[in-house]
């Protein structure tokens, strides 16, 4: 049936044209497929009506079902379930949907259900489900722990999963897969019907797979459906410009340059309506905010700070002020990566490496919203070498190379949590539920043995001393698996979710008003009277009372900045590859000096930068100004970095794309081995451990490691026996898996992974909110459990999962293997520089960081730089 012939289409398009709008082609496509009863994926960037593609589709469908009385119909039960990863998004989406319903004169209710929803509202919803329910994955699982939950979904027509690219590849995505499998097949077993599934996703490298993951469960007990991918053809133009320091440091180090460029940011802010400044960590964003305020006091009141540890209400306020165009700039973290558009944003500044092409584009896309507008993004390096990344990013954007999100497989922790959730209200029967679980992409390869293991884990607690055991979790009642103990059920409900954060405490003014969250370990180092910064405010620590940090405002000049132990993203494989290729151009560009073709010259607009002269003895000439090259000269960063590369070449070597550079350097600290694969810090960490293990088989030797996204360091007190004769063997793929397992670090890494797994799998109980004390005798740390399991139950499923996660994600075994294959085919260049080189310097500084306070670090690095420059 042609959707355009239907009553629903007529109603919707009349409503649109009354507003002077007409549907985009991809929206019409989506409506057509929904009318046809298809499922699939809508691939559209933020801010071009992707919500309406599915939402209006479900309205059209409803109107077509009830053409005469669609306006009057109310209490129809759930029609559209809208899953979103972000609580903050729910309100905006809800408001937009309500506006449509109101203008159409319909009687649908829009409900929101997440951690912020009041109990009364939740109860109203369970009595009478609204037609649309906007929900997070966690709240959806909580709904599955309610009595009669299958009834809620009986009438459901469409499940929409917003920002699917963001969920895919995380355990929250697995939660979504599981919940959908239950809802879809629950409806099937009740009324022999299945809802449609629609994902909404930004562009990622593996869209086809993203669709397959989402729709996997639809194929259970019915004919195979491929599903549709609808692409909104709206490629925005992106303009990338680097912000250059006045002087290129030849010995770069991370984390201090960025903030020194703040004066170059202020004119950008002034020249643009609203600017978003993306910072990679919450701690640095606090510092940036403070520095901006102190350098440009006139911005007070017009700039704001936004990150994940700031109190929810304050964040909402910032977001609303952004919408209203009241702010000149917002310093933010990934917390503003997603979500609805902020129209006033004209300019984006990325501080430090964005780590991946997709994220960079996503952030760039936060600016310039009208369809033909150009997204403008500035790249501000945190150390000079990072400028290479800007050049690499430009290439990647030109070639439209975007990262994939790999879906997670066989997450036993999430599965244990899920079956316990099902055991709370309705209970489950293992055989039925196993088939359903197998219909998901994540668990399609689960073996009977693994499943039996899980059942044993939750019913008899693995293996036990029979007569002395009182293990209790799930009990079996005539084949129905249920949690009967109310305390256990309550504890489980409190633990539902897969986002595990550090122990956090809320900060509150003595006079009232919450400000945000800080990590417990940071609080434990505070003395009353100490001043720290949170949410852009200076706060004096007063005391901790009932697990709340009480503070008051402070006017102190100096304050400490909390740091949060968030995961640090590694450089993506795509960007790493582009980086290596970009370095190739360095050699190419050596011959030619900076081009000054007339078409690139904008005389009116000059900035001073240092450039290299033909001689290797390069000095910065402050009086020398060159015309600014246009952004699309892809190599400008490389020109600017010439002094650094020349020094690197003089001391050691600048590797080509088909080369792997190894530097061996002796300093007072010991013997260093630096390797530069450009594969991101996680792969480097793994490679360092494997290399250390393999070298230690040549001779007994111990190492410490340090790494950044570009390379890694092995440091030892003995000379490191790596040379032309053995180096290819050391990087061999042979016995890779065994060597990973034997390298000490695998255990340490698995221990870290186990932290989250233990919480998700219900091994570590984090306490009741506000009454930590009651569960005191149940407290144990994940690392203790890890040791206990390792020693006494090495085959434990969750323990094994920790190792699997280490290999698959942490070490990115596939990527590691690719890297080693690449190395085998490339030239390994070993150099023995007399001193530290520009390439190794940032790694060296990073490894000093753990031992030194930041002031001391700064001081020592300065000294090292001076020494090195004079050599």
């Amino acid at each position: 049936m042609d959707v355009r012939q239907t009553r629903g289409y007529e109603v919707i398009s009349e409503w649109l044209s009354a507003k002077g709008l007409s549907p985009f082609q991809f929206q019409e496509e989506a409506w057509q497929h929904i009318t046809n009863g298809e499922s699939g994926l809508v691939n559209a960037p933020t801010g071009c009506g992707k919500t309406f593609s599915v939402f209006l589709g479900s309205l059209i469908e409803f109107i077509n079902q009830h053409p005469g009385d669609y306006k009057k119909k109310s209490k129809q039960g759930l029609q559209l379930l809208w899953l979103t990863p972000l609580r903050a998004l729910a309100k905006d989406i809800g408001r937009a949907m309500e506006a449509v319903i109101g203008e159409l004169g319909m009687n649908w209710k829009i409900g929101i259900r997440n951690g912020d929803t009041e109990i009364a509202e939740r109860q109203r919803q369970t009595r009478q489900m609204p037609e649309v329910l906007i929900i997070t994955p966690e709240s959806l699982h909580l709904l599955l722990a309610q009595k009669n939950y299958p009834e809620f979904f009986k009438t459901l027509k469409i499940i929409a999963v917003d920002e699917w690219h963001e969920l895919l590849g995380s355990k929250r995505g697995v939660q979504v897969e599981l919940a959908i499998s239950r809802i879809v097949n629950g409806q099937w077993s009740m009324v022999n019907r299945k809802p449609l599934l629609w994902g909404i996703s930004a562009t990622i490298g593996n869209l086809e797979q993203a669709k397959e993951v989402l729709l996997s469960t639809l194929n259970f007990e019915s004919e195979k459906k491929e599903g549709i991918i609808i692409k909104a053809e709206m490629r925005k133009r992106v303009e990338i410009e680097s912000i250059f320091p006045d002087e290129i440091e030849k010995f770069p180090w991370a984390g201090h340059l960025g903030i020194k460029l703040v004066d170059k940011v202020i004119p950008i802010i002034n020249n643009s309506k609203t600017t978003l400044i993306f910072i990679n960590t919450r701690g640095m964003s606090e510092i940036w905010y403070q520095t901006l305020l102190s350098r440009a006091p006139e911005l007070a009141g017009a700039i704001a700070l936004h990150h994940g540890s700031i109190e929810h209400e304050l964040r909402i306020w910032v977001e609303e002020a952004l919408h209203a165009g009241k702010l000149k700039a917002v310093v933010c973290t990934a917390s503003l990566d997603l979500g609805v558009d902020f129209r006033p944003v004209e300019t984006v500044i990325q501080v430090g490496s964005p780590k991946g092409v997709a994220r960079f584009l996503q952030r760039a896309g936060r600016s310039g919203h009208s369809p033909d507008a150009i997204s403008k993004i500035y790249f501000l390096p945190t150390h000079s070498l990072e400028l290479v990344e800007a050049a690499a990013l430009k290439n990647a954007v030109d070639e439209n190379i975007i990262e994939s999100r790999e879906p997670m497989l066989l997450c036993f922790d999430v599965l244990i949590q899920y079956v316990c959730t099902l055991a709370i209200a309705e209970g489950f029967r293992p055989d039925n539920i196993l088939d359903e679980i197998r219909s998901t992409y994540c668990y399609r390869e689960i073996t009977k043995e693994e499943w039996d293991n899980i059942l044993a884990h939750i019913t008899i607690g693995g293996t036990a001393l029979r007569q002395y055991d009182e293990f209790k979790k799930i009990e079996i009642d005539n084949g129905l698996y249920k949690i009967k103990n109310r305390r256990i059920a309550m504890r489980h409900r409190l633990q539902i979710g897969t986002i595990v954060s550090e122990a956090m405490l809320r900060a509150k003014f003595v006079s009232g008003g919450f400000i945000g969250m800080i990590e417990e370990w940071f609080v434990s180092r505070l003395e009353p009277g100490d001043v720290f910064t949170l949410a852009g405010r200076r706060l004096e620590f007063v005391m901790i009372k009932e697990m709340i940090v009480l503070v008051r405002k402070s006017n102190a000049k100096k304050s400490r900045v909390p740091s949060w132990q968030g995961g640090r993203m590694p450089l993506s494989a795509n960007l790493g590859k582009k980086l290596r290729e970009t370095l190739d151009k360095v050699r190419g560009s050596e011959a030619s000096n900076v081009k000054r073709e007339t078409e690139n010259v904008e005389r009116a607009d000059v900035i001073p930068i240092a450039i290299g002269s033909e001689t290797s003895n390069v000095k910065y000439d402050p009086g020398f100004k060159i015309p600014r090259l246009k952004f699309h000269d892809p190599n400008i960063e490389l020109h600017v970095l010439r002094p650094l590369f020349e020094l690197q070449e003089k001391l050691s070597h600048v590797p080509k794309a088909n080369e792997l550079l190894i530097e061996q350097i002796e300093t007072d600290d010991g013997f260093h081995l630096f390797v530069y694969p450009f594969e991101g810090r996680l792969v480097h960490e793994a490679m360092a451990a494997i290399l250390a293990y393999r070298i230690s088989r040549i001779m007994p030797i111990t190492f410490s490691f340090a790494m950044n996204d570009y390379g890694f360091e092995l440091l030892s007190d003995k000379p490191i026996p790596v040379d032309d004769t053995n180096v290819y063997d050391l990087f061999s793929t042979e016995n890779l898996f065994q060597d990973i397992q034997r390298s000490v670090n695998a255990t340490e890494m698995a221990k870290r992974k186990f932290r989250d797994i233990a919480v998700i799998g219900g091994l570590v109980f984090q306490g009741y909110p506000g009454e930590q004390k009651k569960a005191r005798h149940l407290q144990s740390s994940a690392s203790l459990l890890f040791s206990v399991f390792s020693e006494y139950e090495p085959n434990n499923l969750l323990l094994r999962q920790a190792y699997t996660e280490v290999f698959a994600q942490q070490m990115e075994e596939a990527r590691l293997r690719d890297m080693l294959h690449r190395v085998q085919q490339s030239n390994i260049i070993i150099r023995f520089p007399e001193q530290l080189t520009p390439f190794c310097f940032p790694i060296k500084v990073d490894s000093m960081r753990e031992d030194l306070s930041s002031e001391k670090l700064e001081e020592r690095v300065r000294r090292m730089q001076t020494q090195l420059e004079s050599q």
Partner: protein
Amino acid sequence: MQYPVPHIIQQNHFWLSSQRCIFWEEENALIVCDMHIGKTGHFRKSGIPVSQRVYTEDLQRLLSSILFFKVDKLIIVGDLSHSRSNRELDLFQRWRADFPSLKIHLIKGNHDILNERWYKECKITVHHDKLCIEDFCFCHDACVKEQKKGKYIFSGHMHPGVRIRGMAKQSLSFPCFYFTDTYCVLPAFSKFTGLALIKPEEKESVFAIVENDVMKVR
């Protein structure tokens, strides 16, 4: 088992065993602390499937240490049990019944909240704050009062651990015996316990338990 390491305090010989206990030669006694029996059971009852082998192996280790040193006295410096009663404690009672002649002294710790009757049935002599023998005093949490009287204190509670740093910034943590000039803290006997890292001062002695060895760290 590695041969224990002697440590002499006020002319008494204390042998530090890698099995997380001290043999006191002059009194022919074994000193342990923080056994936390019933902890695995407590966890299991709440749906957390920790292997009970930790517990049974703790008991076996205690048994072999008692046999090895042929002691007739066991001094438990607090936290014999972990929480309220559960069935795992029955196993301990059975274990106790195999050593009718062994005298057991328990100096109560913060976790020792069991019924008085239970201690009676197990033939354990309970001391509420401290137990003093000769020039030595045993109390769960190193209490300051006794130090003035010149008695050397043995305590537990802390679960001390020490971080050993190698060359090139490597480090590992181990349970340890911690001696100051007025008191000593024993490592927790149970392996189902975490570590509280200590920062020893000058002149204090620390012996780390590294697998089956006791190593003097400083």
